[in-house]
């Protein structure tokens, strides 16, 4: 009797958890999928920036004097006084020195001269899509953060709906019907859970930080937003007006090299340059930690003022300082990045297989929805296709900036709408995959033609080879497949 009651309550829990899982997946699966795809590609944003400008000067290190000289030259060339002057130092995945102001950025040569202007429109477009979905910044961040919270909700409801989670952990039925699809979805969800839960949590944390800060400031600091995060990242000194000679830039860099030789520098930030209140932060990485680095502060005369404490301060500082790196996977070199990319692809597979299960179940119940399924297929394969299309036009230099944003969203909307009208999901998937692979190959060809002189540099050929590899991965299964236009009804009939 007790066993029967327990089984009934278990099965009720499974049904209701699945219902919750389905509600969230149907409402937000498409947007979460776009974030998963763009996040996977964004892991390699450094490599992509290099690929977009393969001719830019590269170096493993730069001397303090050369960096200071380049920064001074860029600063003096500004028409309107900048409020911040940055030096981005070379790092393994982006071995370039970049001088940035409020309005522009230039590469520095190793001898301290200023090189070409920095220009990576597609990588910037991709990062903006992943960070904000191209919405206005704080609103976009909040929406993306909310999607992270809903990905957590899907993980939770998925686990609740899975009473034999451990017993089935290695069960995998192969084939093309419903049960193999369920196995694929469940097994990948369980085994990659440490990745997708930590990534959803850190993504949500980054996205929702601003809106939470508003709430904390309102109830705890009389609306003073700066007070919320200043105990973590340090307070901004009061602005002091009045002109002053540009602060010593090389001095702090020499000090860091002498006192902290094992901590590679990532950024030099001069606040309010050439004013009486100018001050300096140098961000240095701690290569054996998860934190993004620590702030080392200097005054305008190059006198060291101490570090903020991300590396050795309170537990809260160290935790918050680790969030960004955990999310973007840039804490362990190329191998960790490759692992993140694989996990990102698997997360995308989990999302796609989840919705496929829904459509297969509908078909089995005689309630197939070919238009809806075609629209979903267009999201699945249309997203990479339109992303590659934007890459193609960005490489040709025809359009950049907001035009890429319009092309992406308009292109994806038209693809989804036209696919829904066709009501043939398999054909939609087939055509979009062919288009994706074709665009990839054309993009690599055009990139090679435009950048012929830099074709065999470390900045260009590795990414080109990976893109050709991706095109092959997409194309080969299609060539091997006999009938690409079969719908899910037929698949259910064949394989269930």
């Amino acid at each position, binding site marked *: 009797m007790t066993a029967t009651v327990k089984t009934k309550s278990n099965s009720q829990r499974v049904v209701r958890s699945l219902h919750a899982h389905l509600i969230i997946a149907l409402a937000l699966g498409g947007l979460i999928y776009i974030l998963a795809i763009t996040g996977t590609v964004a892991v390699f944003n450094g490599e992509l920036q290099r690929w977009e400008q393969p001719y830019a000067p590269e170096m493993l290190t730069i001397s303090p004097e050369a960096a200071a000289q380049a920064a001074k030259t860029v600063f003096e060339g500004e028409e309107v006084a900048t409020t911040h002057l940055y030096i981005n130092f070379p790092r393994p995945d982006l071995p370039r020195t970049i001088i940035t102001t409020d309005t522009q950025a230039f590469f520095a040569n190793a001898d301290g001269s200023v090189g070409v202007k920095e220009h990576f429109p597609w990588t910037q477009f991709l990062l903006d899509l992943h960070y904000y979905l191209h919405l206005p910044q704080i609103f976009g961040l909040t929406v993306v953060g*909310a999607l992270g919270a809903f990905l957590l909700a899907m993980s939770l*409801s998925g686990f609740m709906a899975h009473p034999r989670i451990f017993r089935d952990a290695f069960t*995998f039925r192969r084939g093309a019907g419903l049960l193999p699809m369920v196995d694929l979805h469940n097994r990948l969800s369980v085994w990659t859970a440490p990745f997708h839960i930590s990534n959803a949590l850190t993504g949500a944390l980054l996205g*929702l930080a601003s*809106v939470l800060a508003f709430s904390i400031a309102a109830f705890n600091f009389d609306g003073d937003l700066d007070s919320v995060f200043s105990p973590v990242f340090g307070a901004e000194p009061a602005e002091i007006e009045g002109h002053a000679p540009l602060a010593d830039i090389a001095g702090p860099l020499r000090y860091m090299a002498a006192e902290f030789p094992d901590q590679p520098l990532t950024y030099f930030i001069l606040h309010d340059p050439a004013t009486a209140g100018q001050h300096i932060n140098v961000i240095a990485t701690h290569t054996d930690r*998860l934190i993004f680095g620590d702030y080392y502060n200097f005054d305008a005369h190059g006198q060291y003022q101490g570090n903020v404490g991300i590396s050795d301060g309170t537990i809260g500082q160290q935790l918050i300082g680790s969030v960004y790196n955990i999310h973007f996977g840039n804490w362990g070199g190329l191998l960790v990045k490759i692992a993140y990319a694989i996990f990102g692809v698997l997360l995308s597979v989990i999302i796609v297989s989840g919705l496929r299960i829904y459509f297969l179940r509908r078909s089995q119940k005689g*309630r197939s929805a070919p238009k809806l399924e075609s629209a979903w297929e267009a999201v699945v394969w249309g997203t990479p296709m339109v992303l590659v299309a934007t890459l193609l036009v960005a490489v040709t230099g025809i359009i950049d900036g907001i035009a890429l944003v319009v092309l992406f969203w308009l292109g994806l909307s038209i693809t989804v709408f036209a696919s829904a009208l066709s009501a043939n999901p398999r054909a939609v998937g087939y055509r979009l995959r062919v288009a994706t692979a074709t665009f990839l190959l054309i993009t690599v060809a055009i990139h090679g033609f435009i950048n012929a002189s830099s074709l065999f540099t470390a900045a260009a050929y590795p990414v080109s080879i990976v893109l050709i590899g991706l095109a092959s991965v997409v194309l080969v299964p299609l060539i091997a497949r006999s009938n690409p236009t079969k719908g899910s009804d037929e698949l259910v009939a064949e*394989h269930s």
Partner: protein
Amino acid sequence: MPNLVIQLLAIAVAIAGTWMLQAAWRSAQRSWPKILAGWGLVLASLCIWTYTSAVDKGVALGITAWVVVATLFLCAAAMKSPIRQARPVKKKEATVAVTGAHQITKREIFRHALTVLIIGPLAGLSAMAVSTLLLIVMQALKVEYTAGLATASIVFPLLWGGLAVALAYQRKLLTRLITIFSVGIGSLGFLLIVS
């Protein structure tokens, strides 16, 4: 010991732990010694990783390596599994749902819109209010500020996700409304009192 040797040792221990777990979960009889040994080895692997760098990065590297190992075990299990033979299935008479067999009523649209509102913005605002309240309570209990801030930042998305599931889990719209308003208004009330 050079880092590479320690890393290889940690990976070997993770493989042993995963193999043990696989053996335990696949057998018909539940074997607690095997399960505990499996988890113990996985934990030991994470501990070994901490010798390759600081504790935080070591554990992160260990988890990443273990997920890769587990995924490879899963691939191996899938490769060993026979491909299911196609068999005919008794399918209910096919109807295309979108052709209008079921007319969506205004009442249903209202219910769906309200569900989206409850699970989305309302659950989010409630979670934000609870997280802010949590930070204020932790400060009142003399917990160091940045620790409280980190806790509130982590609790906010977890709570939003948890609330979304709890609300979607409810069948009745009224229960959903009662749940969200008790959490939201309750925490907001406390916030106004304590701040």
